């Protein structure tokens, strides 16, 4: 039997960054394939290239033998590809049923009345995905899981040969995951080809016939879920290599003065739970790592601490609650977050970015700090006059950390500094962090999915899994107790 979807040598560049390089795979009718990779691995880019949301720079995408690479999205959709979006943007004034009817409409300008047949078909689809009871309600009155069902319903309505599902289970509870698995499995029974795009193998293992793993735009492994989980490259990508630990030299009073105390916080994104009853604490001078796969809630946790998202529960800083303060006021207390997307000022030079970070310091002190940072990251000294956007990913990350350090943080929050970086860069970053740790009294809260990167520096480790803290302990115990179940 020939493949419904055939991707061959797919190539996509964004400026100088290669997001997908020579990706090839195929999916047969009735087959469910997982495409996995950490953030920045290029899996979403591949999905968007198949759907036509992004135009590939090279390679071919064939649907039942028809070359569709470079076609506009709506033509690819009509050729038989459907995409189940992770975040839906439902219309506010239309009912659930009307949304499904929308998906059933042909692309025709002369259709001024809804065919009763269409309405009947929409009702059948609503029943199939479990929305029958709520089909006359407006989207905003429904829980998150029902909105995800609506996205599935729209894909079913289009009856595509190939179904792409973006992070099928993100934000769902265990019971809902089971429901969704059944619905996705029903695509297989109907002879569709299904591609599940997700961060990790674990999420999709029970459902898929085959898994393709990507890292840094490359195809790194392919096989059954078990094979891919055992694959050396994949383990290195997710866990790093061998886990090594090196406790920080004990310093007088380290960790004894409580600095940050996060208690029972919960965060909702619309209706999706992003954090559930999470408590962590960080003492003065400690280096604490929060490890967890992408989507576990690390960034949300940091954003809550920095006051960027509303939360329930309390965040105390030196015994004072931070709730109700603006992000700016929180930053001025000394909590500086270095976000995962770096947020550099791309058109400004390296030096200007650093000067901005130190703009509140007296001039001599700023000069001194910059000199110290150039010692920590020598490459930045050489690149001083260059626009930040022209730096490589690793250099950008170093600049982001340096800029955060310019603000003389009392607590430095590093959100996934390894995102999308090659192993050799990781080593440089790791050395810089180690120097920082050994030579200063800085307090650091690090969020990472790469355990090898997160562990060596840490005094204490939290494991965040699917919105909850599931483990806490020192890095030496992590390998024994939590390492095996991590992937």
């Amino acid at each position, binding site marked *: 039997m020939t493949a419904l979807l055939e991707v061959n040598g797919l190539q996509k560049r964004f400026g100088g960054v290669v997001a997908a390089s020579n990706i090839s795979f195929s999916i047969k009718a009735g087959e469910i394939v997982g495409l996995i990779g950490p953030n920045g691995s290029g899996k979403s880019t591949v999905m968007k290239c198949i759907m036509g949301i992004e135009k590939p720079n090279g390679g071919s995408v064939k649907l039942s033998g028809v070359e569709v690479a470079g076609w506009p*999205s*709506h033509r690819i*959709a009509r050729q038989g590809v459907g*995409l189940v979006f992770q975040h839906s943007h439902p219309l506010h004034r239309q009912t659930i049923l009307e949304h499904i009817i*929308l*998906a059933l409409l042909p692309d025709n*300008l002369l259709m*001024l009345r809804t065919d009763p047949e269409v309405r009947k078909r929409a009702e059948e689809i609503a029943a199939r995905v479990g929305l029958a009871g709520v089909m006359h309600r407006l989207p905003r009155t429904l829980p998150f899981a029902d909105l995800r069902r609506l996205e599935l319903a729209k894909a079913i309505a289009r009856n595509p040969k190939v179904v792409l599902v973006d992070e099928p289970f993100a934000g769902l509870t265990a019971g809902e995951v089971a429901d969704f698995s059944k619905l996705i499995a029903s695509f297989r029974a109907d002879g569709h080809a299904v591609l599940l795009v997700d961060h990790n193998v674990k999420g999709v293992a029970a459902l898929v016939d085959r898994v393709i793993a990507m890292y840094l735009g490359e195809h790194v492994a392919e096989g059954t879920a078990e094979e891919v989980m055992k694959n050396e490259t994949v383990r290195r990508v997710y866990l790093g290599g061998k886990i090594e630990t090196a406790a920080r030299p004990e310093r007088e009073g380290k960790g004894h003065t409580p600095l940050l105390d996060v208690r029972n916080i919960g965060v909702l994104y619309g209706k999706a739970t992003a954090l559930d009853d999470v408590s962590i604490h960080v003492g003065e001078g400690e280096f604490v790592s929060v490890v967890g796969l992408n989507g576990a809630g690390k960034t949300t946790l940091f954003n809550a601490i920095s006051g960027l998202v509303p939360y329930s529960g309390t965040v105390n800083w030196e015994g004072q609650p931070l709730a109700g303060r603006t992000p700016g006021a929180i930053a001025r207390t000394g909590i500086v977050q270095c976000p995962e997307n770096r947020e550099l000022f791309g058109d400004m030079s390296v030096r200007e970015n650093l000067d901005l970070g130190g703009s509140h310091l007296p001039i001599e002190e700023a000069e001194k700090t910059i000199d110290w940072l150039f010692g920590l990251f020598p490459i930045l000294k050489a690149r001083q006059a260059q626009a930040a956007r022209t730096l490589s990913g690793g250099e950008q990350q170093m600049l982001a950390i340096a800029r955060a350090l310019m603000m003389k943080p009392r607590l430095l929050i590093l959100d996934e500094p390894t995102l999308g970086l090659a192993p050799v860069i990781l080593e440089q970053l790791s050395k810089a962090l180690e120097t920082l740790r050994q030579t200063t009294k800085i307090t650091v809260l690090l969020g990472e999915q790469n355990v090898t990167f997160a562990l060596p520096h840490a005094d204490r480790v939290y494991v965040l899994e699917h919105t909850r803290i599931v483990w806490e302990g020192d890095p030496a115990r992590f390998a024994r107790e939590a390492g095996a179940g991590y992937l």
Partner: protein
Amino acid sequence: MLRNRTFLIVAPALLVMALLPFGVGGYILGLLTLAFYYAVFAMSWDLLFGFAGEVNFGPSFLIGVGAYTAALLNHYWLWPIPACLACGALAAVIAGMILAVPALRLSGPYFGLTTLVAVLLLQNVIVLNAGITGGEIGLDLPDVLAVDDTTNYYYAFAFMVVSGGILFGLSRSPVGLILQASGQDAVEAAALGFNVAKHKLVAFCISAFFSGLAGAMLIFYMGTASVGTVVDIAVGVNVIIAAVLGGRRTILGAAIGAIFLIGAGEILRPLGQLATFVVSAVALIVILFFPSGFLGRLLHPEGRE
């Protein structure tokens, strides 16, 4: 339920307006005649903004092209009014397409800025060619729609009801649904197989058609075409305020907003310059605190979106 509620609001209001000439004088009828044309401007604008999600900062570009095309044909070649109206509407559609085809490729604020620049260009062309267009003074028209107020009122009223009916019906049809989806999330709409650019372009053409036609009718009511009444940026700003005031994505709300805006401006006229200030302040308050407008509050009591 929604349909019933809309009907219950609209039907009595229309009945009152239809019977109005039997009860009020020419002054009020004249005012409402103007308001009805503005209502069509605002409804056309809402189709584009509320449904297709594109902010057209230059509604008076489309209005002006329609009005001046009709005016020139009537002034120089003495074409009959119906032919002038048809050509005015057609010219607005063509000009709109010339503007929209390249502009719709742009995203975000750039589409809006393009439409704004178009108004300034049109205004300049008219003023610079004063010998032909009458420039700032305007262009006299040999023909008018009617001389007495009641007839003019009914022309405008019928025109508003028919245009409003078509625009409202369109917004509630499957095409309107696709348009809303395209406006809200173009990527997702395209992934469902809809040609987003095509739908937006058609929405722009329909908006241009009614704007141009209303512009042309307005000048035949006034007997003269001038930059100040159909092209000026201020005209466009009023249209936008009317639509937003009445309630985005309701079509009918735009008409209510337009009638309110013209009416309030007139009632407050004794205040002189202050009148404009008061109307603007009311508009600002509504936009800031009730962004879904008059009708948005009424039809969708849950309020904000």
